């Protein structure tokens, strides 16, 4: 066994060792770049309540001046958003809400955002702590414009383009 062979064996061994370490790292690269979220969520569709299906699903592309997302800007779920399609958006702590708010001051079915095609409205669904536009408690469907903060419990949401 010549020295050269032994050196090659040694280098080869170190290379395989590092190859192993790097492949282990590549398996867990999702830790760094984030895991894939299952966006289509096709299997979960059947769980949506029937009444909500009646809303027009076709208007995928929002019209000019119409909001495209509903964003939570404050509260435990700050940063979460749902795309606005034209269907009603239910907010609350329940499992059928569009954003499941993790907020103790929010009721199970707290408030609903809905549209008639031109204007969005927010409507309180008899929540315990109320829904507020500014200092005004929402008692009946109230028009909401882009960028107007709506407060539910400790959570604040707004419509954005």
């Amino acid at each position, binding site marked *: 066994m010549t020295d050269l062979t*032994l050196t090659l064996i040694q280098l080869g061994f*170190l290379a395989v060792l590092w190859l192993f370490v790097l492949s282990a790292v590549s398996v867990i690269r999702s830790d760094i770049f984030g895991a894939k979220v299952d966006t289509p969520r096709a299997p979960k569709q059947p769980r949506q309540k029937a009444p909500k299906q009646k809303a027009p699903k076709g208007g995928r592309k929002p019209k000019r001046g119409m909001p495209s997302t509903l964003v939570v800007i404050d509260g435990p779920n700050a940063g979460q958003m749902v795309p606005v399609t034209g269907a009603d958006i239910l907010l609350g702590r329940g499992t059928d809400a569009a954003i499941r708010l993790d907020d103790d001051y929010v009721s199970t079915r707290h408030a609903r955002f809905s549209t008639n095609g031109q204007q969005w409205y927010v409507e309180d669904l008899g929540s315990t702590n109320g829904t507020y536009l500014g200092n005004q408690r929402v008692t009946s469907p109230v028009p909401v414009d882009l960028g107007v903060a709506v407060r539910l419990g400790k959570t604040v949401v707004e419509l954005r383009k």
Partner: protein
Amino acid sequence: MSTSSAPNSVVYRKRRGAEAVLVALALLIVIAAFCAVGLGARDRIPGFVFGLSVCLVVIAVATHLVVRFVAPYADPVLVPLVVTLNGLGVAMIYRIDLAELDRSGADANQFAGRQVLWTALGLALFVAVLLIVRDHRKLQRFTYTFGLIAFVLLILPLLPVIGTEIHGARIWVRIGPFSLQPGEFAKICLAIFFAGYLVVKRDALALAGRRFMGIDFPRGRDLGPILVAWLVSLGVLVFQRDLGSSLLFFGLFVVMLYIATERPGWLVVGTTLFLGGATFAAMTFGHVQVRIDAWLHPFPVTDGTYQLVQGLYGMAWGGLLGRGLGQGSPEITPFGYSDFIFASIGEELGLAGAMAVILMYALIVERGLRTALLCRDAFGKLLAAGLAVSIALQVFVVVGGVTRVIPLTGLTTPFLSYGGSSILANWAIIALLLRISDQSRRPPPESAPLQMDDATQVVKL
């Protein structure tokens, strides 16, 4: 329903295929290591390699199948990493066995065979823990039982008949032909005990007391638990003369306390107590004094510093790429197969190999902490973090001691060192981590939507 950015909506893939590929690569490394040792030291591939490979493949396939069926969502990189470290350790021990044969002939101590046996037992324990502990939350019920077991395990070596003193440390229990280090198992029991205890008590312990330099310090009356842990660690240091375990237990408690309460003040209190204890120990006890002297002044070489200096020379001789497996002389360092196995690896695989080993430990710890982040219940979070921290602390204490970063303490390098208790305990730790990660990566059970409006939801904990 489109909670597109809720953290729990991530569906983890099982990645068992990736695990299988990594385990295959790990086996390749282990077999290659044995061949390289044989070629380097004896100019031929050892005759048992074929048989060993068959055994290894059978064991690996069995382990993989067990994980696939018992913990399908468990972390995919933990097992391959541990298999590599364990196999590399056995190959290194075999290499030192060969050198001992050359030096002292037929009556030399042979450890590799026994280490293989211990590894097989370790794997059996790994499978047993995975099968018995189906849900880690059940362990929380036995919080104080585990605390008691840990206490008994710590006391065992001090008992007159079975307790044995080997190389100055009274941490061994000898039953017939077997000698065990109960401290290694106490580590797991303590992690479970601390996790269960802190989950219940953390609200009280998180109460802020005085604020000083931007850090909230705990209240004086809450110092009881940390003082008890400190006293027990000092007891280990005084009565068992084991610096490493003492440091490990106290460090584990302080870090878990910090994780549970999120109060950096505890780290300050813990460090202060540790420094106080260390100063006291250094001034009072001879064995601590010797270690600190050896650390600060290894040259000129004396009896107390010979081992440390030989380890340093070995690593220096290894350089960047190492001497090559089988071509260094790690047998010169006393205990090159157990306490100083990191120096042996540094000698034969060089800085490149030693760094790969450290990186593997870092990945294990990272996976443990990641599991803690993902875990849904507080007990599992604390337990996973505690187990990961115990491995991290142990590696730091050993490798830091060997490389003269901190005073040398006698702890085993997890999975690498020769030692049955250490192998068994660490495989059990990995089994627990896999179980917790299986629970936390598993998709949550589909819950039926609530029908009643505004009804108070019953949350099942």
